[in-house]
């Protein structure tokens, strides 16, 4: 299935004025996803640029997913898990942290704007933090501009 073809939202990189960043968030279902839910229940407003992919734990997120997003032209990727020490699976986010620190360095080495990939730790009770993180993230990605790093010559 190629659901992406012909979708009206795929107009990136053409007109800088209308450009809105597209961001993917990988959220662990125990803390960050629930925190995003709480932001909803508290009716906190944040920009609609983020699409959330629900995962059981930040440790589930394979670095390949992040790379795949960036290769596909997504402008920013966020991985968010429970606070360090509060992981539902006791140590999944430790693994995630270690993994993504390395990934971040690798991305930097590859010449990709480090702002495009970010991590955050948001608990189920931090709806406000979620809204804040998204707002800041969107701002930063806007500054970073459209992701063309993987599309040479366009």
């Amino acid at each position: 299935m190629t659901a992406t073809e012909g979708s009206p939202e795929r107009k990136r990189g053409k007109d800088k004025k209308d450009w809105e960043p597209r961001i993917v968030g990988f959220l662990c279902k125990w803390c960050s996803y629930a925190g995003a839910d709480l932001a909803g229940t508290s009716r906190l407003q944040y920009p609609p640029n983020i699409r959330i992919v629900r995962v059981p734990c930040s440790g589930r997120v394979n670095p390949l997913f992040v790379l795949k997003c960036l290769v596909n032209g997504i402008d920013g990727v966020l991985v968010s898990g429970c606070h360090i020490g509060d992981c539902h699976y006791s140590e999944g986010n430790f693994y995630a942290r270690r993994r993504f620190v390395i990934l971040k360095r690798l991305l930097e080495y590859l010449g990709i704007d480090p702002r495009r990939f970010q991590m955050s730790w948001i608990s189920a009770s931090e709806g406000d933090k979620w809204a804040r993180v998204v707002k800041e993230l969107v701002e930063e990605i806007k500054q970073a501009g459209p992701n063309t790093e993987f599309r040479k010559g366009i």
Partner: protein
Amino acid sequence: MKIGVFVCHCGTNIAATVDVERVSQEAAKEPRVKFSTTYRYMCSDPGQNLIKEAVKKHHLDRIVIASCSPSLHEKTFRKCAEKAGVNPYLMEMANIREHCSWVHQDRVEATAKAIELIRLALAKVSRNKPLEYLYIPIEKKVLIIGGGIAGIQSAIDIAFANYPAVILEREPSIGGRMARFDKTFPTLDCAACILTPKMVTVSQSKHVTMHTYSEIEGVKGHVGDFTVTIRKKARSVDINKCTGCGACYNKCPVRVPSEFDMGLGKRTAIYIPFPQAVPNVPVIDRQNCLWFTKQKCGICKKICPFEAIDYDMQDEIIEEKFGAIIVASGFTQFNHAVYGEYGYGKYKDAITGLHFERMANSSGPTGGKIIRPSDGKEARDVVFIQCVGSRDEQKGLSYCSRLCCMYTAKHALLLKEHNKDAQAYVFYIDIRAAGKNYEEFVKKVQDEYGAVYLRGRVSRIFEKSGKLIVRGADTLSGAQIEIKADLVVLATGLVAQPDAPGLARMLHIPYDRNNLFTEAHPKLAPVETITSGVFLTGACQSPKDIPDTVATASAASVKALGLMVQDRLQREPLVAKVDAKTCSGCFACIQACSFTAIEEEEIEDKRLKKKRLIAKVLEGVCTGCGNCTAVCRMSAIDLEGFSNRQIMEEIEAL
């Protein structure tokens, strides 16, 4: 593949900001979508019926429901799918309420986002696989770690339901901290009078086995099938032969400070910790016994009429299987020696609450007299200091230990009862007496027993000419206070046992920064842990008084019994799976698994025509965190329900 999309209005919750009709129309244009509709409340009975009928009419085999958060209604719609004849794991939800309509106001933007969220769900569901629930058998026996009042109550409850329980206790006798108390607040029941009958009940129950003087060495397995290694320390007395006559410890020549009496009294080298000990069998303290230190004496062996003394006894290591574990490992006292301003614990007459309990006990080391440990004189002016260690981020704990207010009030009352001339001065910050009859009790102590309550933390204690000078303040009057005290009782806070993190790691349960075990949910699952089959009770979780401890003990027992009465356990099938063809046997996944849920397995490789080792997931143990999938170089291990293909498809759909 025929996918049905069901868009919920949620009253106006979604419909107000998202144009649901347009969303439904757009969804219908997506490939493989055979049917799309909207309804006011999809989770209601008519809504669910609508889904069932649509499945029947359009022969749908996959369902996407665009509504609220899956944390809320995933279970509802899975069941609904099952009833409609679709595998429950071929249903996905698009969260267009919490993540869309509630957080955005622009109708156009929100509608566009909702459409994309549905596209995401469609992408995922197209890669879903039908999954079957997992079932695991249950070993019908409960292990209770800790033999204090929490463990005792749990054992009684489980035995009452005719299921076997095993108590594991580190000390020679069960009873725990409560056995040391004199009276209990607010009713002033004698602690021994209410605890001893329970201890006897446990010892006489045919369903309860006690491993006293034993420690836990390791835990393997998962809910329904835990294998626990227990070290039964050498008691040097044969528990089957001994009748508890007491001849041995009456004749033992050694005298050392008694741990049970907080060092205020003495015990022998072969001893029972206290007269009501259960089991009533002595133990030899090998560090102090003359036979073990100097190869001399041996009187106990000579005198024992039942030949129960065995100097050559060795530690015994046993393995037992359990279906559930109740953790009742309790607490210990905060060590006030970190307070330099209170003399680094060097003043003999500055004691803790537990010392006071032993002194107030009429069968205790002082025969119920409140004395100064330094010179044995009766104490007249006694200062009680609350919040020692508690509510002090600088030197102690950030939390409130919850019972110190009450036990201090009780001590102030007991002081007056034991010595009419004595005067209690209580330094407090706030009095926290939220419990049945607690406030009334504190008031009684203040009004009828004349305890002087002073609001302020004590800044300094020092010794001068045999008295302890206590410098405090009363913030209510704005006065500095100096009291020449005979005795200072520090209401030390409750802290986790020093080996709590080790136990938590063994059981795979999380603990917080204070080393207290963390419950699965602070409100809705207060005695469960994230490791199914492991339950919490008592002060190992957070400071608790006796009523709360007993309540959680019974709660934990019910949870354990809930497992015991089942023939087998149903589990969500969202666990990791290994693809035997691609697994190279590097076992990086075993390293990454926090739950030891992956094992090595030998298979017959037909292509290579030889045997080789690959990883195997123990479905009962796997919690479905997916950490293993991220380390697998071959992508051979994958997580059902959140598989690589599902997530990749979602990414592609963006």
